[in-house]
C-alpha cells in the first residue's frame, strides 16, 4: 500500500536540485557573510518542504549556499534530469534520497527493456559523497545486485531501503543488504520484478543478524519464491520494533497465524495467501476446525492493526477472522482477492474508519454500494479489474461510481476500472466529491461512449475539472473529442499530471492542454491523433515540466527536431521498437524531459536523442 509514500506521490514535484542552473560555490564569502550564512543555515535547517527549499535557494547566492548545506533530503524526479556528480557537488550533507527513473508508461510495457534508469552511476557517486546516507527510495530504476552490494558496503549508517517497481536485482542482492546493513529499519519491496531463477534463489531472510534487530518494516510480497519460514519466524521474534510486515503469497494462513502471534504489535500486515494451500501440508502444520477460531483470537490480540493487505489466494472461510480489527482499520487492500459482494458486505460493514480501500471489481456495484454505506471517511478508492481485457464483462459501472460519490463525500483519490460509464455518473461525482485531488477513470473498452446516451465522455470529464477545484491528477478514457481537452485546458489550472489514451480528434486537443494547464508537469499520451503542429504550443512550458511522453501519435522526426533545436536543455528521445526501415520519419515513441545533464551517455541503440 502506498499510504506512507506520500513523498513518492506523483503529485508532489519540484525541480529538486535540477531546475535552476547555478554554479555551486565560487570564491569564499567575506567573514561577515560567513556569519550570516551560519545563522541562515541554522534557520533553514527547519525548512523541510523541497518546494520551499527550492524557493529559498533562489533568493541570492548566500541563501543558495546555506540551503545547499542544510538540505537533508534529495528528491530527483527524473534520474536523467541532473547528473549524479552535479547533485552530489551541490548538496553535501544529504541523508535521504528519492530517485525516480523510467516514465510511468514503462509499467505497461511501452518502454523497451534496457532503456536505462540505471542505479549504478548514482550509487557510485553517493558512495563517495554521502557516507552518512540513511535512506534510499527508488522508483522504476534498474538496480543490479552489485549496486545493492555497493550500497550495503558504503553506508554504515544505512537505515531504510524502499524499492518500488524496480527490476534487475535478485535475492542475492537482498541477502547482502540483510547481512551488511546492521542498522536496517526498513526494507520495503513494492511491486518489484526480481530476477531469480527457481533453483538459484538465496535464503536472504536467514542473513539478518542473529541478534535483536531494529527492523520496523519488512515488506516482500513481490518476491516470487518461498522464503525460509523458520528463519522468518525467528526474525520476527527477535525484531521487537517491527510494526509493518508484508509477506508473500507463499506464506499460508497457518504460518501467518504463527507470525502474528510473535508480533502482536504490528500496525500494518500483508497477509500473504490467506489460504490454506499445500504450504500448510508441507510445513506439517495440523489443520482442522480450530484454525479459524485461533485466527480470530490472533487478530483480536493485534490491537494496533490499522492496515491490511495481501489476501492472495484467500479462502473465504477465513475472512471472518479479521472482524475484530475491522473497526480500527484505516487501510484495506483486497485488490488481489476475488471476493463477491456477499463476501465483502459482512466485512465492510464493520469498517467505519476506513480511509483507503483497494478492491477488485468482483464485488460489483453492489459491493461498492456497501462501501458507500459504511465508509464515510473514505479518502482513496481503487477498483481494479479481475479480467483486464477490453472485451471483459465489466462488473462495476456508473452505478457503483454514483453510489461511492454519494456515500463517500471526503473522497480525494479514485482509480476506477470499468466497462460502462455515463456522463451523469461522472458529473455526479464531480459535484459530490469536491475534495478530489486524483481522478483516474479507465473505461477499458477503447473510445467507448456514454453507454446510455451514446455521447462522448466530454461532459463528464469537463465537470470534473470544473467542479473539483483541487484536482491535480487526471486520467481520461472513453470516447473523447477535442472538447474534453478544451475543458481541461480551461479549468484544469492545478493539474500536474495528465494521462491520455485513445482520445481527441485533432492537434487542437493537445494545444488546449499545453496552453491552458499552467501547472502541468507530467503529460503522458498514447494512441491519440496529435501531430507535430501541436508541439510548439508547449515551447513556453516544457522547461517547467518533468516530462512529456507521446507514443503511437502522429509525430515525425522533423517536428520533434524543431522542439529539440528551440530548447537546448530539453532531451528529446525517440524510441524505436525495432528497425523501421520503411519509415524513418515517423516517431513511434517520444519521451522528452528537461535536463541539466544534456543527452545521456547510456542510451541504448534503439534510442535516438535529437
Amino acid at each position, binding site marked *: 500500500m502506498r499510504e506512507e509514500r506520500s513523498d513518492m506521490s506523483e503529485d508532489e514535484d519540484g525541480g529538486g536540485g535540477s531546475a535552476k542552473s547555478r554554479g555551486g560555490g565560487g570564491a569564499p564569502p567575506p567573514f561577515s557573510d560567513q556569519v550570516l550564512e551560519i545563522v541562515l543555515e541554522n534557520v533553514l535547517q527547519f525548512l523541510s518542504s523541497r518546494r520551499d527549499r527550492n524557493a529559498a535557494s533562489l533568493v541570492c547566492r548566500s541563501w543558495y549556499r546555506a540551503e545547499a548545506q542544510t538540505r537533508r533530503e534529495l528528491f530527483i524526479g527524473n534520474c536523467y534530469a541532473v547528473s549524479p556528480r552535479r547533485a552530489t557537488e551541490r548538496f553535501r550533507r544529504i541523508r535521504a534520497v528519492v530517485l525516480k527513473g523510467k516514465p510511468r*508508461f514503462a*509499467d*505497461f*510495457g*511501452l518502454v523497451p527493456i534496457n532503456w536505462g534508469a540505471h542505479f549504478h552511476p548514482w550509487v557510485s557517486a553517493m558512495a563517495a559523497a554521502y557516507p552518512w546516507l540513511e535512506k534510499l527510495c527508488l522508483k522504476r530504476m534498474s538496480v543490479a545486485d552489485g549496486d545493492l552490494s555497493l550500497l550495503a558496503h558504503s553506508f554504515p549508517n544505512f537505515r531504510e531501503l524502499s524499492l518500488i*517497481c524496480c527490476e534487475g536485482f535478485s535475492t542475492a542482492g537482498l541477502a547482502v543488504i540483510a547481512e551488511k546493513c546492521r542498522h536496517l529499519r526498513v526494507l520495503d519491496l513494492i*511491486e518489484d*520484478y526480481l530476477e531469480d531463477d527457481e533453483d538459484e534463489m538465496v535464503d536472504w531472510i536467514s542473513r539478518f543478524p542473529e541478534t535483536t534487530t531494529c527492523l520496523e518494516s519488512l515488506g516482500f510480497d*513481490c518476491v516470487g519464491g518461498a522464503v525460509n519460514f523458520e528463519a522468518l519466524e525467528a526474525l520476527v521474534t527477535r525484531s521487537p520494533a517491527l510494526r509493518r510486515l508484508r509477506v508473500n*503469497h507463499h506464506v499460508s494462513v497457518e504460518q501467518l497465524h504463527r507470525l502474528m502471534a510473535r508480533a502482536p504489535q504490528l500496525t500494518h500486515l500483508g497477509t500473504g495467501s490467506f489460504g490454506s494451500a499445500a504450504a500448510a501440508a508441507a510445513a506439517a502444520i495440523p489443520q482442522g476446525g480450530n484454525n479459524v477460531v485461533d485466527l480470530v483470537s490472533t487478530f483480536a490480540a493485534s490491537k494496533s492493526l490499522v492496515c491490511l493487505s495481501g489476501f*492472495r*489466494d484467500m479462502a473465504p472461510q477465513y475472512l471472518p477472522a479479521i472482524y475484530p480489527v475491522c473497526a480500527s482499520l484505516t487501510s484495506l487492500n483486497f*485488490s*488481489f482477492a476475488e471476493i463477491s459482494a456477499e463476501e465483502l458486505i459482512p466485512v465492510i460493514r464493520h469498517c467505519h474508519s476506513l480511509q483507503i480501500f483497494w478492491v477488485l471489481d468482483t464485488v460489483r456495484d453492489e459491493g461498492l454500494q456497501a462501501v458507500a454505506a459504511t465508509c464515510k471517511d473514505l479518502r482513496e478508492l481503487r477498483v*481494479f*479489474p*479481475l479480467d*483486464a*481485457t*477490453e*472485451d471483459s464483462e465489466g462488473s462495476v459501472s456508473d452505478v457503483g461510481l454514483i453510489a461511492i460519490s454519494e456515500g463517500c463525500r471526503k473522497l480525494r483519490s479514485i482509480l476506477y*476500472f470499468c466497462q460502462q460509464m455515463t456522463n451523469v455518473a461522472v458529473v455526479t461525482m464531480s459535484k459530490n466529491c469536491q475534495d478530489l485531488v486524483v481522478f483516474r477513470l*479507465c473505461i*477499458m*473498452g*477503447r*473510445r*467507448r*461512449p456514454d*453507454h*446510455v446516451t*451514446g*455521447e*462522448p465522455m466530454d461532459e463528464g470529464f469537463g465537470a470534473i475539472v470544473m467542479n473539483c477545484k483541487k484536482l491535480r491528477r487526471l486520467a481520461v478514457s472513453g*470516447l473523447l*473529442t*477535442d*472538447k474534453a481537452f478544451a475543458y481541461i485546458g480551461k479549468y484544469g489550472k492545478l493539474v500536474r499530471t495528465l*494521462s491520455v*489514451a*485513445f482520445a481527441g*480528434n*485533432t492537434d487542437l486537443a493537445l494545444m488546449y492542454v499545453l496552453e491552458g494547464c499552467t501547472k502541468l508537469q507530467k503529460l503522458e499520451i*498514447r*494512441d491519440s*491523433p496529435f501531430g507535430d503542429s501541436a508541439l510548439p504550443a508547449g515551447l513556453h512550458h516544457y522547461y517547467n515540466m518533468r516530462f512529456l511522453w507521446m507514443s*503511437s501519435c*502522429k509525430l515525425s522526426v522533423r517536428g520533434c527536431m524543431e522542439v529539440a533545436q528551440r530548447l537546448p536543455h530539453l532531451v528529446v528521445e525517440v524510441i524505436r521498437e525495432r528497425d*523501421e526501415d*520503411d*519509415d524513418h520519419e*515517423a516517431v*513511434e515513441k517520444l519521451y522528452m524531459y528537461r535536463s541539466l545533464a544534456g543527452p545521456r551517455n547510456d542510451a541504448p541503440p534503439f534510442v535516438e536523442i535529437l
Partner: protein
Amino acid sequence: MEVSVSDFDNLKATELRLGLPGIDAPEKPAPVSPRGSKRALLKANEECWPGTSKSLEADTSNQEAQPMAKAQVIGWPPIRSYRKNSFKARKAEVEAAGLFVKVSMDGAPYLRKIDLKVYKGYKELREALDNMFRCFSTGELSGMEGCNGSEYAITYEDKDGDWMLVGDVPWEMFISSCKRLRIMRRSEATGMPSSP
C-alpha cells in the same frame, strides 16, 4: 455516433474510432480497422485525418471490424504486469492441472487415465474411449445414446458418490462433477435408469 459541435468540420467523417463497434448505438459507423502492425495502423490513420474527404460510412461494410475490435493492444488496459501475473499464475496453475480421471472397463486388466478438459463434448469423449479400449471389446462401446446394440454403458461417479449414466447433463456440468469413469457391461447395467 453524432458529435454535434459545429466548430469542427467534417468531424463525423474524419472521426476515427478504434473501439468496439457500437454496442449501444447501432447507428455508429464501423471503425476503420487496418490489420497487422502498428505501422499499418498509423498509415491507415493518416488516410482518415482532417484534410481528406474519405468518409467512414464507406467502411461500414468492412468485415474486418470484428477482429480489430478483439485485438489486444500492448499495455491496455493499463494494469501493471505485476498484477496481471498474479492472476495469470493462479489461472495457469488451475488450467495446467487438467482434469484427469481414471477410466476402468469391466474385464480389462488395467485402468486408464484421461484428461476431460481436452474434449469438447460427449462425442469426442466417446470416440476417445472407443480408441482406448477397443482392444478389450469386440465391438463399439457406444454407450451414450440408448442401450440398443451396444455391449457396454459408459458411467461415471459424481461428487456425491453416485454412479450415473454419461450423457444426461450438459458437458460443462459433467466435467465439473465427474470423479471417475467406468465402462460397464450392459448386463450389469440393468439397474441403471435408461436415458430419456
